[in-house]
């Protein structure tokens, strides 16, 4: 029987001819990423041996630079771990700093046909590289670092055929909010993306969709490999790879079409992104205190350029804080060179260093009681970005930037002409 992309990689990496939904398999891991939260005292377990230091990457991203002593201590423990086992890939505060999922993109850590785990739920981000990537738990990641393998439960796959081309000021985030709004959660399932519309989406745009698939509760989110992806990877890594295509007779739980051409800017209302999207017009006029552009889903060069285009020559509304967080130093450097950062700062944005920051409520823009934020980040659960009584709307960087200028939730199409 034919297999989907996820099933094919699960089979190949578990040494089986095939897998079917319901199977539990033990899979060899190519890339294992630990990050600063793993090294916090309540989570860390002192590892005595690792499977292979070449397969391990250590990233400090959730709280960088350290906002307090506990975070600082976690970074210190992480550095000691790296030193003890001779791990070469450490992304510490400095030149190679960034959010892990962005670093995977910047450095070509995920290539087609491979497996990757990190104990952050948005690790499914790496599926944009035709890679089997998923977030695991703290114990999983320690087990993975020691053994180089983990167990996966194979779920059914839902496939999305993307067609057409996004209109101006409408982004991959809106495409995601459309899927999440209409189809709700995909728990215990994989999602697979393909179709003629993919060619027109940048890797950054596609990555927004795989990253956000964590909010669908998807197991794995994968894209097919094309020339755009091959070129991206060849510019960043020497690793050889082979594209994994789904079989023509692969069995899907559902195949759904999404016409990108007909989409409009959407906003997810507070507390959830599933079954919770509204056209931006429905929320027009909603007052905001903070606008946040960043995170592993929308802190890329594309996102910063788009935000800069929206705010160019304008000023952030009085009483509103626009916080912009490049997802990595690479993105930051590119946006400095292109002038996007200058445009944003001129408009009144505060640029934070690459970090998860307020996306996870850690630091750099945490919300006070009853404040309202519109964010381009990944998650808007109650209390996610600060006080439980704060409200977090979610939208594309274009919509967030437009809202920052207006001081109320606004349609970015009115700003980009």
């Amino acid at each position, binding site marked *: 029987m034919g297999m989907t992309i996820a099933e094919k990689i699960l089979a190949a990496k578990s040494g089986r001819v095939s897998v079917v939904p319901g199977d539990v398999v033990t899979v060899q891991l190519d890339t294992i990423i630990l990050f600063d939260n793993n090294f*916090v005292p309540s989570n860390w377990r002192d590892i005595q041996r690792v499977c292979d230091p070449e397969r391990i990457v250590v990233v400090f991203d959730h709280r960088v630079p350290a906002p307090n002593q506990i975070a600082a201590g976690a970074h210190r423990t992480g550095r000691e771990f790296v030193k003890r086992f001779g791990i070469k890939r450490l992304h510490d505060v400095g030149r190679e700093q960034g959010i892990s999922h962005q670093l995977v993109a910047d450095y070509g850590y995920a290539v087609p046909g491979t497996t990757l785990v990190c104990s952050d*739920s948005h690790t499914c981000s790496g599926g944009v590289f035709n890679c089997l990537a998923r977030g695991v738990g703290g114990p999983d990641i320690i087990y993975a670092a020691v*053994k180089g393998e983990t167990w996966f439960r194979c779920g059914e796959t839902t496939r999305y055929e993307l067609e057409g081309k996004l209109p101006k000021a409408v982004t991959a985030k809106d495409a995601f909010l459309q899927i999440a709004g209409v189809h709700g*959660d995909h*728990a*215990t399932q994989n999602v697979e993306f393909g179709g003629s519309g993919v060619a027109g989406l940048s890797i950054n745009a596609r990555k927004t969709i795989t990253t956000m698939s964590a909010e669908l509760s998807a197991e794995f989110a994968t894209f097919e490999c094309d020339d755009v992806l091959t070129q991206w990877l060849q510019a960043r890594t020497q690793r050889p790879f082979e594209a994994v295509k789904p079989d023509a007779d692969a069995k899907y739980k559902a195949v759904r079409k999404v016409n990108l051409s007909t989409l409009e800017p959407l906003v997810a209302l507070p507390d959830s992104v599933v079954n919770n999207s509204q056209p931006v017009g429905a929320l027009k006029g909603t007052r905001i205190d903070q606008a946040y552009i960043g995170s592993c889903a929308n802190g890329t060069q594309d996102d910063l350029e788009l935000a800069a285009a929206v705010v160019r020559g304008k000023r952030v509304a009085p009483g509103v804080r626009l916080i912009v967080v490049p997802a990595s130093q690479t993105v930051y450097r590119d946006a400095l060179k292109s002038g996007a950062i200058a445009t944003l700062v001129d408009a009144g944005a505060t640029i934070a260093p690459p970090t998860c920051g307020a996306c996870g409520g850690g630091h750099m823009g945490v919300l006070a009681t009853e404040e309202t934020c519109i964010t381009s980040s990944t998650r808007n659960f*109650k209390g996610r970005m600060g006080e439980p009584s704060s409200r977090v709307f979610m939208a594309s960087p274009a919509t967030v930037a437009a809202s920052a200028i207006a001081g109320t939730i606004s349609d970015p199409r009115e700003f980009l002409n």
Partner: protein
Amino acid sequence: MKFTARTWKVGDNINTDLILPNRAFYLTPEEQVSYVFSANRPGWAEQVQKGHILIGGKNFGMGSSRPAARSLKNLGLACLVAPYINGLFFRNAVNFAFPVVECPGVDEAFDEGDIAEVDVIEACVRNLTKGTELRAKVLPAPLLAIINAGGIYPLLEKEGSIAPRLAAGR
């Protein structure tokens, strides 16, 4: 692996931030317990008694990789039964040896306070108060083995791959 006890019920889409909010991030696992559902059900954590059973709604545990399952276990709950469970929460539950059972229809079959009998191995959930019975999904044998071993950490400790931890609340 069979539990009989009073049930507590929560709704659909319970997320990890409700179970283990950011505000508790820097605390010890024991201290984190009192924050469970503090945003949506203040005071609940104090009412739970050892051995009680949690009946969840659809997509229980959506959200992050944080050790939310550990908090439910440390709270003293015997197990979680929900129609279907977020994959990442499910992994954490297995790996922290907190028994989880996926049982379609369980959310409708129970009112809070009903007495449940949950047989994890036989994949059977009974509502003793109402006299009804539901089939659950079988927990695959390799995962059951991890739960029986007390989770991943004791396995790794035993073979010397990680240093033992003296404090409770793994």
